[in-house]
């Protein structure tokens, strides 16, 4: 009980003589009236959305890679159901005999229908559009080009309309695009951090300008550079914390809404693009990093300015 109140006092006093509220009161607070909290709120919100996008893409790629490594798909593209069924059976028999195949699974028509439904509409599968027979194959080794070619050659003997694809193969351009998007997300996060620092720098400089008289007085009364910097650090810290909290709320709301939109799109490909608990914690750490950037920027700006005084 006494310990918490002592701790409270220490926090309020800023852990040093002339820290805390007393020092902070030396600079009139702009708080909500000033642009600082809002600039930081916007920066944090954008950073949260960009980082969430990057993390979701990362998760998606990882899930897809894990699922697809060593995976191949055999399609039997034949318009007549009877012939298609016959070739599919032959493919299954060949796969069962192949020592390079770990397992295989005929994708049931119902599942195929469900998969295609978003694109083709309900009930289309058994009507006019011919749907290929699909067999998922898991190879013992990697599904590289040589393995795929070997399998293709082998299957052509028993099923002339069978086409073998590495599952990661047809996704490769998608992986490439996603990797670019991730770099874009990282670049955005870095740019936003730099822009926030620049905004705080400008705000600290203007605060220095409008409080020059106070600074000179504290300086002449024997205030140290550190004491003077703390006055501003604290005020900027408050602003940044406020802006960070608002920005986090806006950013998370944006991420949740976007997440819902993508979830509605969820077919096999986008599944696994959700955010894990560590991802959410990372997002929650963004405003904390924002406050740190703001406080450090303010400190360096103020120190650089007061060092010019004797």
């Amino acid at each position: 009980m006494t310990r918490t109140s002592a701790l409270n006092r220490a926090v309020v006093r800023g852990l040093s003589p002339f820290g805390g509220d007393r020092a902070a009161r030396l600079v009139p607070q702009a708080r909500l009236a000033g642009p600082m909290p809002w600039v930081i709120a916007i920066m944090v919100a954008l950073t949260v959305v960009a980082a969430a996008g990057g993390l979701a893409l990362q998760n998606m790629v990882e899930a897809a890679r894990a699922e697809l490594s060593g995976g191949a798909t055999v399609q039997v593209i034949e318009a007549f159901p009877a012939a298609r069924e016959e070739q599919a059976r032959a493919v299954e028999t060949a796969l069962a005999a192949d020592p390079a195949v770990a397992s295989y699974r005929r994708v049931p028509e119902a599942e195929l229908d469900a998969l295609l439904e978003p694109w083709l509409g309900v009930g289309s599968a058994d009507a006019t559009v011919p749907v290929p027979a699909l067999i998922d194959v898991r190879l013992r080794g990697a599904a590289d080009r040589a393995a795929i070619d070997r399998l293709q050659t082998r299957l052509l003997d028993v099923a002339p309309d069978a086409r073998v694809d590495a599952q990661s193969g047809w996704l490769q351009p998608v992986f490439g695009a996603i990797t670019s998007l991730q770099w874009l997300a990282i670049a955005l996060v870095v740019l936003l951090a730099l822009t926030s620092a620049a905004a705080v720098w400008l705000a600290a400089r203007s605060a220095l300008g409008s409080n020059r008289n106070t600074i000179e007085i504290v300086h002449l009364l024997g205030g140290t550079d550190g004491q003077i910097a703390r006055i501003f650090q604290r005020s900027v810290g408050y602003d940044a914390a406020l802006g960070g909290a608002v920005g986090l709320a806006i950013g998370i709301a944006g991420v949740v809404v976007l997440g819902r939109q993508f979830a509605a799109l969820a077919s096999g490909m986008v599944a696994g693009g959700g955010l894990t608990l560590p991802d959410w914690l990372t997002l929650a750490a963004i405003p904390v990093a924002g406050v740190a950037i703001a406080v450090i920027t303010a400190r360096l700006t103020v120190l650089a300015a007061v060092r010019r005084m004797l």
Partner: protein
Amino acid sequence: MSDFDSEIVAFDNVGLRYGTEGEVLRDVSFTLYPGSFYFLTGASGAGKTSLLKLLYLAQRPSRGAIRMFGADVITLPRARLPAFRRRLGVVFQDFRLVSHLSAFDNVALPLRVSGVPESDIAKPVADMLDWVGLSHRHEARPATLSGGEQQRVAIARAVIGRPDMLIADEPTGNVDPEMALKLLRLFEALNRLGTTVVVATHDVHLLKKVPDSLIMRLDKGQLSDPTGALRYPPRAAHRERPAS
């Protein structure tokens, strides 16, 4: 040697120029002894404020040497200057009060800068405001105070920390003769407690009001020494020192 030990300030051939203009202070040499009361006089523009700025460490001289509290303050690392400034009390010619702080908080500022605990601040500050006759205005912002009241807040702030040296630039410029005399008595009381006092004024009538005071005169940036006190340790200094 013993004189050297007991000095509180020593200027040696100090010159000061602002920018590329001619020197505002030329060949200024003097020594201040602890416990003495000095007046710095001279016409307006003679360089009194400039000399005090050197004294309260707001300005570096263009040439010459300045020793204070036994240290060469010209070559002292910047980080060590705040500790020296905290031993000084300064009444600035333009007061320099913090405009958004109350009279109370302005007076409390030096104590807070020095890290005096909050519990030891309220009473001394209230007493000091009472002494300068402003206890009823302790919540007032400087802008709502008259020139004379602001000056008294500035004086209260300068003496609240019981400085080793009080430096006052025209401290009676905005008050009526009665209050001027009262403030001089405050400075004298402080002086008797051991504080060295330096008061710059262009008002020659003030000089006679402090009998034991020593007078420095600035004329167009050059110092003259009408009482000879700056060359020889004054009586007040002898009074403070143990017999040798």
